[in-house]
C-alpha cells in the first residue's frame, strides 16, 4: 500500500535525501505560499460581508484552509520534489549472504528444519534475483565464517554461533572488496559472545547495511529451559553450597516440576517447584553439601514435561572446586561463657575448619585450646605474620582496651588488607559495654553502636529471619528455603541479647530478635569491609538452641558451621587465581588472572607468576603471566584451551627462589551444548542489528522484496540517483480530496 501511494518503498525514503529540482530556492516557495494565502483570503473576507447569513462564523476560515492547502500541493509539485539516493551499481558490488549454520538451525519446525527453510527460501529465486544485480557471495557462519558455493552445503552442525565474529570477518573483507550489503539469515541464537558494540560500530563505520531474515518461532509452545545456574567457583569441603537456578517455560504454567542437583549418579539436592507464567524468568535456590575435596562436576536439571519440544535445554553442568585446605579461625573470649563451649563443640564437628581459642579464665590467665602448643603463648597476636595466618577471627566478650592500639589496628588490617572475616559477639564486656564503639574497631562493626551502657540484657529474646536472611546461605539450617524459615521460627529463645544500635549503610540485617516491649532489634548483621567481611551476632545465648532442643536436632551446629564458613569463605592466600567463569561453552580463549600478595598481604609487583595447566587426557602446559599495568599485584595471561574437557590450573608465584604462594582453579570446556539453549528465534537481536546498521529485518515470507530494497546502500560502489516525487499518487489524491471537500462544503452551506 505504501509503495502504491508513495511510488517507492519506505526504505528508499529512509535512505534518500529530499531535494527540489526546479532550481528555485526553497524560501521562494515559502513566500509564494504566504502570498497565495493572502490572495485567497481577500475575496473570502469580502464575500463574508456580502453574504453574512451563509458565510458566518468559521465557515470562511474552513474554505480558506482547504484552498490554501490545495495551492500548497500545487506549488510543491511546481518546485519539482525528488529523492536523491545512493544506489549500488549493478554487478559492481558484492552482496554477502551469511547463513547461520549452527546446530540450532537443525531444530525441527513446521515439518522441516530451519536449515531446510533457509535453503528453500534462497533457492526460491532470492539468490537468482540478487545475482542479477550483484555479485553474491554465500557464507556459512558457525564459530567463524566460511564461504560456500550453494545453499545445499549448509549442514546446520556448527557447535556454536558467533554472529559477531562472522560479521567482523565480512567487515574485514569489505575493506578490500566492494561489499554493498550483508544479508544475514539466522535464528539469532548467538551463544559465543554476542554482538558487541565494537563490531556494530565497525560495520556502521563502513556503512554496510545488514539485512536480517529471522527463521524459527519466536516462542516455543511447550518447553522448559534452565537459562542459568549460579554456583560458587570454589568452596570448602563439606560446605553447604547454594545453586541459584534460573528457568523459564512456555505451556506449563502452574504445573509442578522437580529440579535436581546431581554429582554423577549421586543426587545432592532436589526441590519441587511450581512453574510461573509463560515466558517469566523464575529463580529457585537449592542448597546442598559440597562433599569432600576435589573438582566436582555438578549437573542441574529439571524433569522433562509431557510434550516438551526441546529436551536438551533441561540440564546444565557446572564445575565447583572443593578445597581441601582447612581455614583457621581464632576465637578470643574474655570470660567463661556457655556460648564459648557450644561454639567450640559445633566447630569440633566440622572437619573443614580449625579453630584456636583463647579464653580469659582469670584476670591474668588465658586458657588456649586448638592450634599448636606454641600458638599465641604470649597472648593475642601482635604481629602481622601471627594474626594474618588465620582466615577468620571471633571477638567475644572482650573489652576494646584489652587489645593494644597496635593490635586494634592489626585487626582492622586483618579484615581490610588480608581479606579476613571478623565476627563480633554480644556479651557483658562486648561492643558498647566494652568501649568498642569508641575504638578503631568500631569501623569493623556493621552497626553504629549505642553510646550508652547497660546494653547487654540476660533476658529471653525470640529470633526471626529477615527477607535477606531467608535468601542467605549463612542462615540456612535447612535445605528447603520455606522449611528453613519455619525452623528459624521454632528455634528456642536466646538466653540473652545486646542492643547494638542501627545498621550502617551497606550492612545487611539477616536476623532480628524481639524481647519484651523493645520491638525488633538487629541480631545478625553483616557487611563487607575492604577485602574482607565483618559480622555481628548480638547475643551470647544461642547455646540454648543446643541444650533445649531434642537430641539430634542440629540447628545450633549447622548455624555455627555456616557462620564460620561464611567468615572464612572469601579469605584467600597470597595468590588468588581466577577465570571469568567455570564453564566455557564453545569458547576457547581463557583469560587467566592472578592476584599476588607478599607476606604482609601487600600487592607484590616483582613476582614471577606461572600457570601450569593440566588439560584433558593428561596434556600439560606452562603459561607465564605478565603484570597488568593498571592493577598493582595483578598478573594476567590469555591462553587457548583447544580441547573440550576439564582443566586444572595451578598458579605459582615466586620471588627469586622463594615461593610467594600458589592457587589451584578448575574450569571446563564444552562444545555444542550452548546451541541447545535459547532455541527460539531471537528477533530482538536481529532487529537491533539491522536497525543499527541501516538494514532491515525481514520475515521469511518477505524475503522476495530483498533484491529490490537492498540496492539502496551507501557502502560499496554506488551512484547517486534522483527519483521524482511530484508524480506520487498520494499528491493527486490529496489535491482531489481538498477540492472535493470544498465543493461539498459550499453545497451544504449554499454558497456555490
Amino acid at each position: 500500500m505504501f509503495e502504491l501511494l508513495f511510488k517507492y518503498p519506505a526504505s528508499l525514503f529512509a535512505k534518500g535525501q529530499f531535494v527540489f529540482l526546479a532550481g528555485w530556492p526553497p524560501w521562494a516557495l515559502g513566500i509564494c505560499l504566504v502570498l497565495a494565502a493572502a490572495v485567497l483570503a481577500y475575496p473570502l473576507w469580502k464575500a463574508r460581508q456580502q453574504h453574512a447569513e451563509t458565510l458566518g462564523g468559521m465557515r470562511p476560515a474552513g474554505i480558506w484552509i482547504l484552498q490554501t492547502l490545495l495551492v500548497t500541493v500545487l506549488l510543491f509539485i511546481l518546485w519539482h520534489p525528488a529523492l536523491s539516493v545512493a544506489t549500488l551499481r549493478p554487478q559492481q558490488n558484492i552482496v554477502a549472504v551469511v547463513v547461520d549454520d549452527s546446530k540450532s538451525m537443525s531444530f525441527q519446525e513446521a515439518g522441516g528444519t530451519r536449515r531446510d527453510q533457509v535453503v528453500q527460501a534462497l533457492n526460491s529465486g532470492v539468490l537468482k534475483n540478487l545475482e542479477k544485480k550483484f555479485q553474491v557471495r554465500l557464507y556459512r557462519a558457525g564459530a567463524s565464517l566460511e564461504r560456500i558455493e550453494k545453499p545445499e552445503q549448509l549442514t546446520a552442525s556448527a557447535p556454536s554461533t558467533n554472529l559477531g565474529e562472522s560479521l567482523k570477518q565480512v567487515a574485514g573483507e569489505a575493506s578490500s572488496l566492494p561489499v554493498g550489503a550483508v544479508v544475514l539469515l539466522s535464528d539469532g541464537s548467538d551463544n559465543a559472545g554476542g554482538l558487541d558494540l565494537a563490531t556494530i560500530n565497525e560495520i556502521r563505520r563502513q556503512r554496510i547495511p545488514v539485512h536480517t531474515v529471522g527463521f524459527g518461532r519466536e516462542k516455543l509452545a511447550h518447553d522448559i529451559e534452565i537459562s542459568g545456574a549460579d554456583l560458587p567457583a570454589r568452596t570448602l569441603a563439606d560446605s553447604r553450597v547454594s545453586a541459584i537456578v534460573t528457568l523459564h517455560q512456555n505451556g506449563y504454567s502452574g504445573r509442578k516440576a522437580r529440579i535436581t542437583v546431581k554429582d554423577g549418579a549421586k543426587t545432592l539436592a532436589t526441590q519441587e517447584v511450581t512453574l510461573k507464567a509463560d515466558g517469566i524468568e523464575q529463580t529457585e535456590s537449592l542448597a546442598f553439601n559440597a562433599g569432600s575435596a576435589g573438582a566436582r562436576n555438578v549437573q542441574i536439571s529439571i524433569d522433562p514435561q509431557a510434550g516438551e519440544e526441546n529436551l536438551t535445554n533441561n540440564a546444565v553442568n557446572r564445575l565447583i572446586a572443593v578445597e581441601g585446605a582447612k581455614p583457621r579461625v581464632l576465637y578470643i573470649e574474655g570470660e567463661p561463657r556457655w556460648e564459648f563451649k557450644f561454639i567450640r563443640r559445633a566447630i569440633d564437628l566440622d572437619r573443614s575448619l580449625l579453630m584456636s581459642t583463647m579464653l580469659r579464665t582469670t584476670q591474668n590467665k588465658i586458657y588456649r585450646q586448638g592450634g599448636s602448643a606454641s600458638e599465641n603463648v604470649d597472648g593475642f597476636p601482635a604481629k602481622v605474620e601471627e594474626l594474618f595466618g588465620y582466615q577468620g577471627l571471633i571477638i567475644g566478650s572482650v573489652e576494646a582496651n584489652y587489645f593494644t592500639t597496635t593490635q586494634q589496628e592489626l585487626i582492622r588490617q586483618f579484615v581490610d588488607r588480608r581479606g579476613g572475616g571478623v565476627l563480633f559477639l554480644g556479651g557483658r564486656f562486648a561492643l558498647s559495654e566494652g568501649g568498642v564503639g569508641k575504638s578503631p574497631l568500631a569501623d569493623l562493626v556493621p552497626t553504629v553502636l549505642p553510646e550508652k551502657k547497660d546494653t547487654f540484657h540476660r533476658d529471653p529474646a525470640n529470633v526471626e529471619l529477615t527477607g535477606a536472611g531467608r535468601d542467605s546461605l549463612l542462615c540456612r539450617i535447612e535445605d528447603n528455603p520455606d522449611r528453613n524459615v519455619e525452623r528459624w521460627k521454632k528455634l528456642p529463645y536466646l538466653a540473652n541479647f545486646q542492643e547494638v544500635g542501627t545498621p550502617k549503610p551497606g550492612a545487611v540485617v539477616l536476623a532480628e530478635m524481639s524481647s519484651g516491649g523493645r520491638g525488633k532489634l538487629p541480631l545478625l548483621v553483616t557487611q563487607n569491609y575492604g577485602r574482607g567481611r565483618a559480622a555481628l551476632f548480638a547475643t551470647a545465648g544461642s547455646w540454648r538452641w543446643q541444650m533445649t532442643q531434642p537430641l539430634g536436632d542440629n540447628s545450633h551446629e549447622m548455624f555455627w558451621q555456616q557462620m564460620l564458613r561464611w567468615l572464612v569463605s572469601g579469605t584467600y592466600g597470597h595468590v588468588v587465581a581466577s577465570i571469568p567463569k567455570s564453564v566455557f561453552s564453545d569458547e576457547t580463549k581463557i583469560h587467566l588472572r592472578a592476584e599476588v600478595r607478599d607476606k604482609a598481604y601487600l600487592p607484590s609487583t616483582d613476582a614471577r607468576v606461572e600457570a601450569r595447566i593440566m588439560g584433558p587426557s593428561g596434556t600439560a602446559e606452562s603459561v607465564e603471566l605478565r603484570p597488568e599495568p593498571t592493577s598493582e599485584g595483578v598478573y594476567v595471561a590469555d591462553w587457548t584451551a583447544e580441547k573440550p574437557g576439564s582443566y586444572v590450573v595451578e598458579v605459582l608465584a615466586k620471588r627469586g627462589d622463594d615461593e610467594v604462594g600458589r592457587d589451584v582453579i578448575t574450569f571446563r570446556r564444552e562444545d555444542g551444548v550452548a546451541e541447545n539453549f535459547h532455541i527460539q528465534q531471537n528477533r530482538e537481536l536481529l532487529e537491533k542489528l539491522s536497525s543499527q546498521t541501516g538494514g532491515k529485518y525481514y520475515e521469511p515470507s518477505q524475503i522476495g522484496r530483498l533484491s529490490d530494497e537492498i540496492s539502496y546502500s551507501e557502502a560499496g560502489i554506488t551512484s547517486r540517483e534522483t527519483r521524482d516525487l511530484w508524480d506520487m499518487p498520494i499528491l493527486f489524491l490529496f489535491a482531489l480530496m481538498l477540492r472535493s471537500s470544498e465543493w461539498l462544503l459550499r453545497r451544504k452551506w449554499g454558497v456555490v
Partner: protein
Amino acid sequence: MRLRITLSAVLVTLFMWSGLFAFQRGRRGGFREYDEPLVTPADAGEKTEWAFARLKYPSPRYWNWTTDYPKADRQFVQGVRRLTRLHTRSVEQVVDVDTDEIYNWPWVYAVEVGRWDLTDPQCQRVRDYLLRGGFLMVDDFHGTQEWEVFMASMSRIFPDRPIVELENKDQIFHVLYDLDERFQVPGTAALYRGLTYEKDGVSPRWRAIMDDKGRVMVAICHNMDLGDSWEHADNPRYPEKYTSLGYRIGINYIIYSMTH
C-alpha cells in the same frame, strides 16, 4: 466460738507454713541442712551466666540431695567469683531432675549420689541432658556399697559407656589449676574421727564418663567430700589444705564444663 477461733488459728498457721515452704522450694528447693537463719544476699536476684545448680533427685531419705546445702554452695560461689572471671550468682539454683529446667543449667552438682534412686524417665532426661552438652559433677559418696547404689542408676543413664579413671594429664586437671598432686578431701565426720575416708572408701577416685569425643560428661568424685571442703572453708577446725584443693577441683570442673 472457741472451735471457730481454734480452727482459724490452725488455718492461719498452715497457710503461713505452706507459704514459707513454697518460698524455700522456689529458689532453694526445700530443706536445709542447718537451722541457722538463711540470709539472702542483696544480689541474689542478679541474672548471671552461671549459678551453682544443685540437682534435686529422689532417694530413700528425701533430703540426701540437700547435704551441705546451701552453705557449701554459697561459700564455693564466693571463691569462684573471686578467683575467676566467671559471672556467677551469689545464691544457688536447685534443679529438679523431674523438670526440663535442667536444660537451662549446663553444669549441675549432685551430692550423696550413693543414695540416689532415679526412675527410668529421670535417667532418660539426665542422659539427654548430658548428650546435648550438659555436665554432671557427683560428689560425697564413699565405699563399695554406695558406689553400687550410684551405679544402679548411672548404668541406666548410660548402659553402654564405661567409667574411666581420670589421668593426671587430663585437661580437667589443668584447665585453670594444675592439679597433678591430689589427695583425699575428707568430710568433717571422718575428720573428727581422725580419718580422711568413710566406710571402705580408703582411696580417693577421680573418675568420669566420657562422650564420643573423649570429653568428660560426668565427673565422679568418689571417696571424697568436696562439699564439706566448701562448706567448712570458714571452719577453723577444718584444715585449709582440703578446702584449697576442694575449691581448685570445683573451679577446674566448672571451667572444664564451659570449655569442652
